[in-house]
């Protein structure tokens, strides 16, 4: 088995996939803690569907670099969703559901009408569930991913206390003079960017899993914010690495394998958490 992995890892594209997978898992788990605690778990889901729609358009128009179209569109939707979330007339969850299914339907329709691809179902399936795309990453993708993950980690180090305050109690944070809106906007924009990158790893339907599972698992066991953030990052990285390795060894789909690892870890953590609180 070790020999087999060694052969695989002699290929640069496998090393890229591993690096990108781990970095995406790391950044999404950090953001996930804040999103889950603020009851925004569905933002990830909604935005990933928007990214799917944008991806469909980019594919049909045959733009050289997909990310150049998908990233701005998704970031823009993140800002819009956040704005409507504050508007009392259109409640946040309804707005997200609306944008999310709308973009999904639009993207699929667009692909069906205009795609020149011979394997339409294959294309759709791989955008939705992730695919070999992780193995065909360009150098630009890898660098983009490194820069973005670096930014996320830096953001959480520098603004850790502010993010805590805004997540725990937005009203108090505002009342004590913090610009809570700015932090919300920052989190939404970064989440959107991570989602666009994560699409290559797990596909747009499974991205929410990367965002919420590590945070939920960590919350079963840890009782301080710092503990939850750190545990979430560690669990997510382990799951991503293990999932990618397993998918190489048993040639299973990367995204689904990683998500199944996340689910297994969540089950373990729930069990452990139950035992801890009883004991």
């Amino acid at each position, binding site marked *: 088995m070790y020999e087999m992995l060694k052969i695989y890892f002699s290929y640069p594209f496998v090393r890229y996939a591993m690096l990108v997978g781990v970095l995406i898992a790391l950044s999404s788990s950090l953001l996930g803690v804040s999103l889950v605690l603020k009851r925004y778990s569905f933002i990830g889901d909604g935005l990933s569907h928007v990214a799917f729609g944008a991806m469909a358009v980019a594919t049909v128009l045959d733009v050289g670099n997909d990310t150049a179209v998908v990233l701005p569109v998704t970031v823009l939707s993140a800002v819009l969703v956040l704005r409507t979330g504050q508007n009392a007339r259109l409640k946040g969850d309804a707005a997200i559901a609306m944008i999310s299914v709308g973009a999904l339907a639009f993207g699929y329709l667009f692909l069906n009408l205009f795609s020149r691809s011979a394997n339409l179902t294959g294309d759709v399936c791989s955008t939705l569930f992730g695919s070999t795309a992780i193995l065909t990453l360009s150098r630009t993708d890898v660098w983009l991913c490194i820069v973005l993950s670096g930014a996320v980690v830096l953001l959480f180090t520098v603004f*850790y206390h502010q993010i805590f305050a805004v997540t725990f109690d937005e009203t108090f944070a505002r*009342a004590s003079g913090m610009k809570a809106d700015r932090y919300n906007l920052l989190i939404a924009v970064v989440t959107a960017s991570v989602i666009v990158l994560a699409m290559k790893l797990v596909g747009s339907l499974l991205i929410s899993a990367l965002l919420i599972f590590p945070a939920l698992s960590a919350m079963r066991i840890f009782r301080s914010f710092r503990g939850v953030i750190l545990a979430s990052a560690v669990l997510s990285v382990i799951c991503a690495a293990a999932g990618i390795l397993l998918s190489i060894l048993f040639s299973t789909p990367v995204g689904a394998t990683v998500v199944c690892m996340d689910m297994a870890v969540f089950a373990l953590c729930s069990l452990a958490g139950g035992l801890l609180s009883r004991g």
Partner: protein
Amino acid sequence: MAQIICRDAALGYEGRAVVQHLNFQVDRGDYLCIVGENGSGKSTLVKALLKLKEPMAGEICLGDGLEADGIGYLPQQTIVQKDFPASVQEIVLSGCLGRFGFRPFYGRKEKETAARQMERLGITHLAGRCYRELSGGQQQRVLLARALCATRYMLLLDEPVAGLDPVAVQEMYSLVAELNRQEKITVIMVSHDMHAAVTYASHILHISEEPLFFGTREAYVQSEVGKAYLSVTGGERHV
């Protein structure tokens, strides 16, 4: 000089006033209770006092050191907080954030402030505990300690005893009264509990669409509005 002066202020949403012609003044060391029915604009007034909302007309001025130091706010609990994984220490420290501005780490000064407030409220032994595992009364003490980290002069408490058991309610009231008397911290409390209002407050502001009454507690008990409201609510404990 007054800490808060409210001159003929009107507050509301989307151009529609919820409450208008508000006139009152809060001096250092006062204990003001804001009472009134649901939807009478109490929460809107709280937002305006915290400068989260501009008055539609008139003005609300802060003075006497309050401009720089801010108000220590004790908000109503949200569902998000009920199961939030955070240690007591983390929450109390976050009260210092507004004052220290742009720095990634807490300094010794913030840690000392937090420790002092926890000591004062008798929750030092809970510092490492998880917030969601505490009782309602303990949770309120934690939030009160956080509010005290944010101010030296004024506490603004929004329904501080909602959802507490009778013993915790009593403890909360005595604690606030003690802070008010001994530390000369001004207290503004929004409350449904008329009995507490006429027991602890030095001044009472009764609002409806228009302010029905503003003055000292003694005057309120004698006033028509006060008499009517107290007879309906019986001045009884609302828990």
